């Protein structure tokens, strides 16, 4: 029994240690913040719910970047800038999304596409490895790049994409399905991005 407990403790400690090695970084999200339904986006067949049709934002309504923060060099006590930190430390970053206070009877979905955005820095030694530990520094949209419904629970977020290494200029597009039961007019809500790092 002791052996089993030791195994679990060891496994747990390994996981914690692996996660504690993730360096801090900064997420930046910019872009327009309006998604508008036009008359062409309305249901055409009387009796059907309006959510049988949908309307989309621009392909780059939000632009997402994530880079590691500058580090203090313990030897020189100088700062190692973000570019150098990103060059020397490769992690897997998962991007989870959810909404806060989205209007009722409205479904908000998000997506990006394979390898969207730019590697940061553009070319590093890691890219030249034959078998890089985490694979190439690419972006992988979840569920093949199709739209993913964002939960509006305030607690639960879903993965929309992940990428290896620091990355900038990732476009995110949105699609909205508004039921006939939804209130018309302009509604304000929040789209929340959570980035989580991993060495695995």
């Amino acid at each position, binding site marked *: 029994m002791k052996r*089993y407990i030791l195994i679990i403790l060891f496994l747990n400690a390994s996981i914690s240690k692996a996660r504690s090695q993730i360096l801090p970084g900064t997420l930046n999200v910019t872009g327009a913040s309006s998604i*508008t*339904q036009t008359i062409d986006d309305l249901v055409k067949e*009387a009796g059907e719910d309006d959510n049988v049709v949908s309307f989309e934002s621009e392909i780059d309504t939000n632009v997402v970047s994530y880079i590691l923060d500058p580090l203090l060099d313990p030897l020189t006590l100088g700062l190692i800038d973000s570019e150098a930190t990103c060059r020397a430390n490769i992690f897997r970053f998962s991007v989870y999304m959810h909404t806060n206070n989205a209007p009722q009877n409205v479904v908000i979905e998000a997506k990006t596409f394979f390898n969207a955005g730019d590697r940061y820095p553009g070319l590093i030694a890691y890219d030249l490895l034959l078998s890089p530990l985490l694979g190439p520094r690419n972006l992988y949209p979840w569920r093949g790049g199709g739209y993913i419904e964002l939960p509006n629970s305030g*607690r639960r977020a879903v993965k929309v994409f992940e990428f290896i290494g620091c990355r900038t200029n990732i476009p995110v597009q949105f699609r909205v399905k508004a039921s006939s039961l939804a209130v018309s007019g302009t509604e304000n809500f929040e789209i929340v991005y*959570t980035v989580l790092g991993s060495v695995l």
Partner: protein
Amino acid sequence: MKRIVIILVIALSSFNAAFGQDVLDVLGVNLLLFGGDRKAISTTVDILPVAILDVEPEDGALLSGGVVEQEAGMPVLTGLPENLWINFTYRASNFQPARIYVSTNQPVPAGMVLKVEIVQVGANGSFPNNPRAGEVILSQTEQVIVYDFANGYTGDGVGSGYKLKYTLENPNSQSLPVGFQVIYRIG
């Protein structure tokens, strides 16, 4: 050995549930410990009002402005139309409730009385039903056949929405004029 494997599988499953799957407990994750960051961006969504209706089966033509025309000339000779259903989709502007009105495009000939009544409400869709009870004697003057209702949709096709029943008093066996129409409007 089996037990060790089971324990490992459970441990790894727990790890995957926490970190490896596509769902994240936002409040339960420590970004300082795990690395990462969070940002919220304010967004607006603009949703339009909508008000469309038709009568099924689709004998009528949908016109702009949500007006439906139902040809009622032929039934006088061949029998009144049966099993007609009003379908609608409605999303209010400024929470304004809607009504459905009925009228004719020409006077009903003297000596004839044409009536319509809602006799059944369909179970499809999602809508607050509020039909007028009893018959409406049709004329060129618009009359309410469904009273105030809020957002909803009836479902599409026969069996959805409101079932109509026409009756005609025609002691002189006259015909309705050519081009005679019954008009339904949502607004």
